[in-house]
């Protein structure tokens, strides 16, 4: 990561596509600059040698093996499932045609 440059616009565009966001030219410049500044600051983490430190993905490190029993509980009513739907048809959610 030592030769890392401030994030370039192509990378921001790629990340925006991955995030399903459309950026205007103005936004692209703005975000590129801001993300660059943030990443430059974050670069300070490279000062620390973490080779012998395990990662923490979760603060309660002792918590393991949390299960539920295989029992059927009630599902939502179709009315509840679909009441927030921007578009629906019968009991389905409706979306633009997905071409396969």
């Amino acid at each position, binding site marked *: 990561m030592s030769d890392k440059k401030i994030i370039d616009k192509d990378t921001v565009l790629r990340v925006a596509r991955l995030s*399903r966001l459309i950026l205007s030219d103005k936004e692209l410049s703005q975000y590129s600059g801001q*993300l660059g500044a*943030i990443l430059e600051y974050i670069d300070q983490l490279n000062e620390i040698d973490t080779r012998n430190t395990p990662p923490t993905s979760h*603060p*309660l490190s002792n918590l393991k093996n949390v299960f539920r029993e295989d029992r059927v509980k009630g599902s939502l009513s179709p009315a509840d499932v679909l*009441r927030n739907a921007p578009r629906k048809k019968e009991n389905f959610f409706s979306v633009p045609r997905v071409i396969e």
Partner: protein
Amino acid sequence: MVNSCAVLHSCLERIERLNSKINAFVHFEKENPLGQKGTRPIAIKDNISVKDELTTCASKILEGYRPPYDATVIKKLKEKGYILMGKTNMDEFAFGSSCETSCYGPVRNPWDLKRIPGGSSGGSAAAVAADLVPMALGSDTGGSIRQPAALSGVVGMKPTYGRVSRYGLIAFASSLDQIGPITSNVADCAELLGVISGYDGLDSTSADIPVPDYTKALVKNIKGMKIGVPKEYFPEDGLDKDVKEALLEAKNIFKGLEASLVEISLPHTKYAVSCYYIIAPAEASSNLARYDGVQYGLREEAVRMVDMYAKTRTAGFGEEAKRRILLGTYALSSGYYEAYYLKAMRVRTMIKNDFSEAFKSCDVILTPTSPTPAFKIGERADDPLKMYLSDIFTIPANLAGIPGISIPCGFSGNNLPIGLQLLGKPFEEETLIRLAYAFEQNTEFHKRKPNL
């Protein structure tokens, strides 16, 4: 049946009169509280799911969304006779420390309407500070309960990660989020914490540890308790003069109560913001992927599916949300994961270890909650990094998963509240309550009210 409880009616009257000034509530219908039984009015942050009630995270993308289920904390409140007053304003998806990123417009600090109330639970903190409600629920991912509590002059606690169920809390960063109380005094905080805490089979990350009676910790005697003062939290520069003085005075008050102060060190503190601004946006970028116009909320129509996604998300998310989604997506994307996300998780371990080490020599840790009192609306809007850096004192507790409380400890020269923060060992909220209560009962800060 109309609820005739006097406290409720006083709250309704104040909300009606003052909410338009401070913009604390975003979803509020008078008939709704009046139709509920119970005696304890409470406000709910807009990112906690309440069945059939608008729950939008102050984001346009969740426009019109009414969850078909109650969050676990809401179920508990309903069972215990709380009256849900409505939903409070916040930074969009809790992304922020000022409540300026809300799609409903900024919340105003009851102490100075030109200033921010802190964030992201600024609506909840302002509602309590303005006595619209005696208590509220907030959520804290990097300081979002404690910082607005400090800046609005109220009590706010982030419990230990796993103490309160997250089921129904709309996720920002799942490994950091925690729901907690925002109240006008420590006794209410203890009571509310007791109600919402406990193991929940619907949240794999909730801890199966008995919930003590927190009100038993409401004792004034803290003699002999050891308070650690980390030098990294009292930097020579970077701490507002009034904050510095208020904290100095707070130390003296604790000394006067016969607690002992010990200097400690949390050496990795300066890396906390960097670490947090990788982990939190990374998790957020994934948590927010579901807002796509298929099942609920905003939808911008398009002929092609990919375009529907992009148009919907582009129209629905605000600027800060987009910034964090981009940052988080970048940190997780191929080629950068190890350099950023994995690295941050390792640094997180070091920050966590700092606390374990420090707690060997003290019972609690005393710090300022925020480096400065409330700033003016718009003042820091152009510099996200500067905004991020102001969370330096609250972020480490979230990374380590430990509990923290902010209580009023003074006022600035221009009559803005200042808060102190106490950090505790995992699942030792009682110790925090005990010290906070002793401090509160021996000071007058909590009695001062904003002039509205």
